[in-house]
C-alpha cells in the first residue's frame, strides 16, 4: 500500500495550495482529484477578485497555473475519488476508487457541488436541457424559453444572465418571496422577460431525448400543472462533498466539516480547507488561505508525531 506523509483530497484552490505547501516543506505529498483539476473556479469565465490579477483572469487559467506551481515541488497528483477514511494507528487509511492509500495526515479540500432537485428525469436529461450552470450553458438557449429553480442570489443572477439569451425566463421558487439581495430583486422584478412562479416546486422533468416539460406542484394548494420549457437551470444551493467523511469527523447540520481556526477537525491529523469547511466564505482567495493553514497544521502535526521524513520549514 502506497504510504504518504500527507494526502490532500480535492484539486481546487484549497487543495492545490495545500499540496504546494506540503510538498515544498519536504513532505511526501499526494493530491487526489476525482474529476478535472481546478475545482469550481473553472466555471468562472473571469475571476476579478483574486489578488494579483488586476485585469482579472479566467478561472480555468488560474486553476491551470495553480496546478503547474503545485507540482513543481514534487506534489503527486492522481485521479481517484476518496470513498472512505479510517484510522489505522499511527496513520490514516483512505480507500479510493483506485485502491487504498495510507497517510500520516490528511487534508480534506473536496469542496461542494450543486445541489440537485432529486426528481425523476433529472439525471437522464442532465446536459440535455437540465443544467446547473447558467454561465456555461445559457448560450444554447438563444430565443428559447427556460426556467430557473431557486430564489437565492445565484438563482436570480442566473435568471438575469439567461435573459440575455432566452426569450422568456420563469423563476420557480418554493416560497412566496425571494432570498436574494434587495438590489438583485429589484432588477429581477423590473425585467420584462422574467416571470415568477411562487410557492411551487418541480416534481418531474420530462422529455424524450431533450427536456420538454416540467411537472410543477403548488405547495399550498397541492395543485399540479405543466410548464413547457427548453431548459431548466437548477440553482437550489450547494452541498458539501463530505459524505465519505461523516463517520469519522464532526459535521454541522448541513454537512460542512467543523474546524478550528487552524483547520483542525475533530479527528487529530485530519484537516479541512476551503468550501467544505463550516463558515467558509466560499471565495478562491479564502480557499487558498485555508490551504496554507491546513498544510502548516499538517506539517506541525507530523513533526510532533515524529513520523515524517526529513522536514524543512514550509
Amino acid at each position, binding site marked *: 500500500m502506497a504510504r504518504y506523509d500527507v494526502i490532500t483530497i480535492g484539486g481546487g484552490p484549497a487543495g492545490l495550495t495545500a499540496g504546494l505547501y506540503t510538498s515544498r516543506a519536504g513532505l511526501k505529498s499526494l493530491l487526489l*482529484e*476525482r*474529476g*478535472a*483539476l*481546478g475545482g469550481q*473556479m*473553472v*466555471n*468562472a*469565465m473571469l475571476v476579478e477578485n483574486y489578488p494579483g490579477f488586476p485585469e482579472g483572469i*479566467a*478561472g*480555468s*487559467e488560474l*486553476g*491551470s497555473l495553480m496546478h503547474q506551481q503545485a507540482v513543481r515541488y514534487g506534489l503527486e497528483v492522481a*485521479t481517484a475519488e476518496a470513498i472512505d477514511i479510517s484510522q489505522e494507528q499511527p496513520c490514516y487509511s483512505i480507500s479510493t476508487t483506485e485502491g487504498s492509500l495510507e497517510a500520516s495526515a490528511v487534508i480534506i479540500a473536496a469542496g461542494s457541488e450543486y445541489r440537485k432537485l432529486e426528481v425523476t428525469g433529472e439525471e437522464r436529461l*442532465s*446536459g*440535455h*436541457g437540465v*443544467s446547473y450552470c447558467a454561465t*456555461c*450553458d445559457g*448560450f*444554447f*438557449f438563444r430565443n428559447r424559453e427556460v426556467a430557473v429553480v431557486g430564489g437565492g442570489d445565484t438563482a436570480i443572477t442566473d435568471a438575469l444572465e439567461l435573459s440575455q439569451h432566452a426569450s422568456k425566463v420563469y423563476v420557480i421558487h418554493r416560497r412566496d418571496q425571494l432570498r436574494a439581495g434587495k438590489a438583485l430583486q429589484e432588477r429581477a422584478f423590473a425585467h420584462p422577460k422574467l416571470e415568477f412562479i411562487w410557492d411551487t416546486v418541480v416534481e418531474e422533468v420530462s422529455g424524450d*431525448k*431533450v427536456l420538454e416539460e416540467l411537472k410543477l406542484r403548488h405547495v399550498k394548494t397541492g395543485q399540479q400543472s405543466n410548464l413547457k420549457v427548453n*431548459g431548466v437551470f437548477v440553482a437550489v444551493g450547494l452541498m458539501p462533498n463530505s459524505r465519505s467523511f461523516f463517520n469519522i469527523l464532526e459535521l454541522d447540520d448541513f454537512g460542512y466539516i467543523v474546524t478550528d481556526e487552524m483547520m483542525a477537525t475533530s479527528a487529530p491529523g485530519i484537516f479541512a480547507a476551503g468550501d467544505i469547511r463550516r463558515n467558509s466564505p466560499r471565495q478562491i482567495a479564502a480557499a487558498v488561505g485555508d490551504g496554507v493553514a491546513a498544510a502548516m497544521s499538517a506539517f506541525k502535526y507530523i513533526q510532533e508525531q515524529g513520523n515524517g521524513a526529513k522536514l524543512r520549514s514550509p
Partner: protein
Amino acid sequence: MSKIVQITDENFEEEVLNSDLPTEVDFWAPWCGPCQMVIPIYEKLSEEYEGRFKFCMINVDENQRTAVKYQIMSIPMQKYFANGENVDEILGAVPEQTIRAMVEDILKRFPADETGRLKVLLTSWVEHNQKHAEKFNKWVEKSNNLEDNPIYNSVLQAAQELKKANEQLSQVLMQLPG
C-alpha cells in the same frame, strides 16, 4: 504535436461522418472554462492514438449548425462517432482515465479492420445463440410431460443442430488473430 482536427459546419461530414477511423468530437467554446481543462487530455490522446482513433474539436460559437443538429445544450460535450453514426457521448470535464476507457471501448466495439469487424459480429452472434439456448433450457425445466409433445421434439432437434453450429462459430472465433 497535437493531432486534433479542427472541425467546422462545412467539413463535419467529410472529416467525421465519412471518417475511416472511429472519431471523437469535442464540442467546446472559448468562454467555457471546463472545456479548457480537458483540451490538454485530448491533445495527448490524439498523439498516442494516431492512426487508430481520430480526435476532433468544434467551436460551437462559430459552428452553430452542427451544434443544433446534435442538440448540444451543455459543453464540454464529447460525441463519439463510428461508421457515420453517433454511438456514444461523454458530458462534462472528466478525468483522463474516463476518456481513455471510452476510447478503448469504442475501439473494441467498432474495429477498423475486416477481421476485427468479423470478430465483433461473431462474438455477438455466439452470445446471442447462447442466451437463447439458456432461455430454452429454462423453459424445458418449467414444463411438464415434454416427451409426448411432438413440437418439443422438433424444437429440441433444431436446438441441438444450432448448438453444433454455435460451437463451430466459437471455434472460428478462437482461430481469428488478435
